[in-house]
């Protein structure tokens, strides 16, 4: 592709500029992926170089260190204690003791069972005392997987702590060599509210995220490679075990003839994307429209209009959505009114026709979403410098030109990242779909396979359906969840890296 200089570019006609922009966009895609892979490569290179350096440092610290340092390689915190830093030393030692105890008592067992996820399932066992067969539960695949992962986390934490312990010795030796005193336990405690205050502040939030988000996500990713479901719950019914990539094959392989899962997944993914697109942009533009009406000069009672819309935000969504859903049902108030007014002869099947149901969820979503957008847009409108409008009026722009040349570009620039989060948020908008339709109307072709997939089901509501009920296919839900992640991640990556408008975010600052 020919690259134009700035001056050459200015001479192009509108059409040429557009083609040129489009061409540069597509030309930038390979570059983007090249950079992405290079970045990943660099990451791993840095990782390995880093690990290498750590080992080299471990060696040199051992070789150069005094006996206190050397003993610390085995007894953590020894060096600290020997140099008078009792608090740190004791903490290290305690951590080591806990770790060893745990590994002996439990960790070793979980880790050894991890490759098989349990050997003996539940079953009847002869009991000599009672002289009868009793049903007995044995290994627990679920716990093995969970505690196995936890044990690996713990081992990583231990290695990190051990490394820190060695580093401490090195640093302490260096400080002592300059003749300065080491920090005492009191200094350490004091620094927790001062220069190390961030560690104090982050301790609680990060622990929560680690245990309640990171650990479950790792666990669920692993579940995608097992046959964990309602009939293989790992303890009460049957053990579950590793099955490799089989589940991904089930969900994604279209070629294997009559694959209902793949077809259903494809259909739901398509609808999810369509839904996210419409839900995001209808809200965005209509919200902008409403905000601009309310903010127009000369419109009175601005506060009243705004308050009416804002009030609807406060009402819990399950009330408004469930209620609106019933309003449009066959014997709901809307059909009732239309019938009594004689506008229609028989009830409109708002929720029974696939197309109508899909349109309805998008329309009702507008009703839900506009108040938020109105607030956001109002905030941004207020921030657009008034002199931009004044100067454009002097330049001869009319209201429509002001909107397209000033308001809209400004909006798009400021709200670019917000639009992206809205889009991905809508892809996972469980509440609106589940409370309005519950996924209905049922898609007969798709529902025989997994859950009871309907025409308005999003991936996220489908996932929920898969995991409920006696035949919950957790492994499938987990694959769907991973696919949702992949789709969201790809969209975010492309939007963030390729679209120039987000890159040049500073333009309007």
């Amino acid at each position, binding site marked *: 592709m020919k690259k134009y200089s700035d001056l050459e570019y200015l001479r192009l006609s509108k059409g040429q500029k557009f083609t040129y922009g489009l061409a540069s966009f597509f030309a930038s895609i390979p570059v983007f992926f090249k950079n992405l892979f290079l970045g990943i490569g660099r990451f791993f290179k840095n990782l390995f170089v880093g690990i290498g350096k750590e080992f080299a440092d471990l060696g040199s610290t051992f070789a150069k260190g005094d006996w206190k340092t050397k003993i610390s390689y085995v007894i953590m915190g020894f060096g600290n204690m020997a140099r008078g830093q009792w608090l740190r030393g004791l903490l290290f030692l305690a951590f080591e003791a806990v770790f060893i105890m745990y590994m002996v008592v439990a960790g070793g067992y979980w880790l050894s069972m991890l490759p098989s996820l349990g050997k003996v399932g539940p079953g009847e066992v002869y009991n000599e005392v009672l002289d009868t067969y009793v049903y007995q539960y044995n290994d627990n695949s679920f716990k093995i997987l969970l505690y196995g992962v936890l044990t690996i986390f713990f081992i990583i934490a231990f290695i990190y702590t051990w490394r820190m312990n060695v580093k401490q010795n090195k640093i302490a030796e260096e400080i002592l060599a300059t003749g300065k005193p080491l920090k005492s336990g009191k200094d350490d405690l004091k620094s927790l509210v001062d220069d190390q205050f961030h560690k104090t502040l982050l301790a609680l939030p990060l622990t929560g995220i680690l245990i309640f988000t990171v650990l479950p996500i790792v666990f669920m990713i692993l579940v995608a490679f097992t046959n964990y479901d309602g009939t293989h719950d790992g303890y009460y019914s049957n053990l579950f075990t590793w099955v490799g990539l089989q589940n991904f094959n089930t969900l994604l392989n279209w070629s294997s003839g009559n694959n209902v899962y793949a077809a259903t997944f494809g259909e739901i993914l398509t609808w999810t994307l369509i839904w996210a697109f419409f839900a995001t942009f209808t809200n965005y533009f209509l919200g902008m429209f409403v905000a601009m009406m309310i903010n127009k000069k000369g419109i009175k009672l601005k506060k009243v209009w705004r308050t009416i819309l804002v009030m609807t935000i406060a009402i819990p969504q399950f009330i408004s959505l469930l209620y609106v859903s019933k309003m449009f049902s066959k014997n*709901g108030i809307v059909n009732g009114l239309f019938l009594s007014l004689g506008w229609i002869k028989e009830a409109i099947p708002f929720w029974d026709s696939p197309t109508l149901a899909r349109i309805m969820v998008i329309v009702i979503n507008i009703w839900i979403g506009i108040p938020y957008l109105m607030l956001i847009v109002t905030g941004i409108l207020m921030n657009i410098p008034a002199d931009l409008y004044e100067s454009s009026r002097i330049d001869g722009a009319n209201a429509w030109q002001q909107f397209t040349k000033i308001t809209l570009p400004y909006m798009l620039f400021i709200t670019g990242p917000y639009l992206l989060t809205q889009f991905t948020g809508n892809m996972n908008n469980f509440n609106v779909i589940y409370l309005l339709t519950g996924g209905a109307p049922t898609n007969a072709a798709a529902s025989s396979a997994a859950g009871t997939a309907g025409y308005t089901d999003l991936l996220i509501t489908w996932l929920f359906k898969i995991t409920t009920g006696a035949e919950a296919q957790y492994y499938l839900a987990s694959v769907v969840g991973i696919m949702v992640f992949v789709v969201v*991640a790809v969209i975010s990556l492309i939007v963030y890296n390729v679209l120039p408008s987000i890159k040049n975010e500073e333009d309007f600052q």
Partner: protein
Amino acid sequence: MSTNQTPKRHMGLKASARISNTIIYILLIFISIIWLAPFICIVLQSFRVESTWQVGYVIPQQWGLDNYVRLFHSDFTKWYLNTFIIAVAVAVIQTIIVLCMSYTLSRFRFKMRKALMQFMLILGMFPGMLTMIILYRVLKDLGMTQANAVPGLILVYVASSGMGYYVSKGFFDTIPKSLDEAARVDGATRAQVLTKIILPLAKPIVIYTILTAFMAPWGDFVFARYISFGTSAGMNVAVGMYNWLNKDMITSWYTTFCAGGVVVALPVTILFMCLQRYYVEGVTGGAVKG
């Protein structure tokens, strides 16, 4: 433009403005009706006595408090209390966690800061529902499901709330850093900077965080349904009232649902309207920051 044309055009402007304003007023009234209609209907139907099911008209033929009486004799009071306890606990704990997280990410430049933020961004791309499967079983082992769902739900809501730091971090970023620096030079520790300088200035965002944290549990459906798992004593209002609208119950519970909706929405809405200013500030600030 010649001068003698100016007055004519001026009048034209005024007239066209009047027309466009009239159109806008009509549209705004129409919009207001659409937005308020469901809520007016729900209130009216909650007072309807003659039928407990859906009817094709809006104004009740017979007014009465029957539905409310029935509401307070059902499990609703239990659900309401559950939700209220959860909401208060979440509001307190989540606010503390979010403030810790966002203040730290806004003010401290430590080694892993960027990596941490990117990591959380990636974590956020996983559907949160996925984690429910395992959390349910773990909480079940800990005895925090079904009838004891309240502590379990609080734990689930609060535990990962550190990831929702964006909006308040955006706010903290707008407080000049030189205030922190001045205070530190004046002899304050980092902790004192937070308590004596930043928190008093962060009142709007603190209120915003409390408000959103308090409101979320009233509307949550998925997690609450998972963890209460069909046990009425552990449900929140959303899960409990959802069941009233299933095929078997809707004929006799529809108007009670409306009454319940009013009882749930009223306090939350009043609270929200009182603190509206802070909410608007938070929402707009958050979106502009991205």
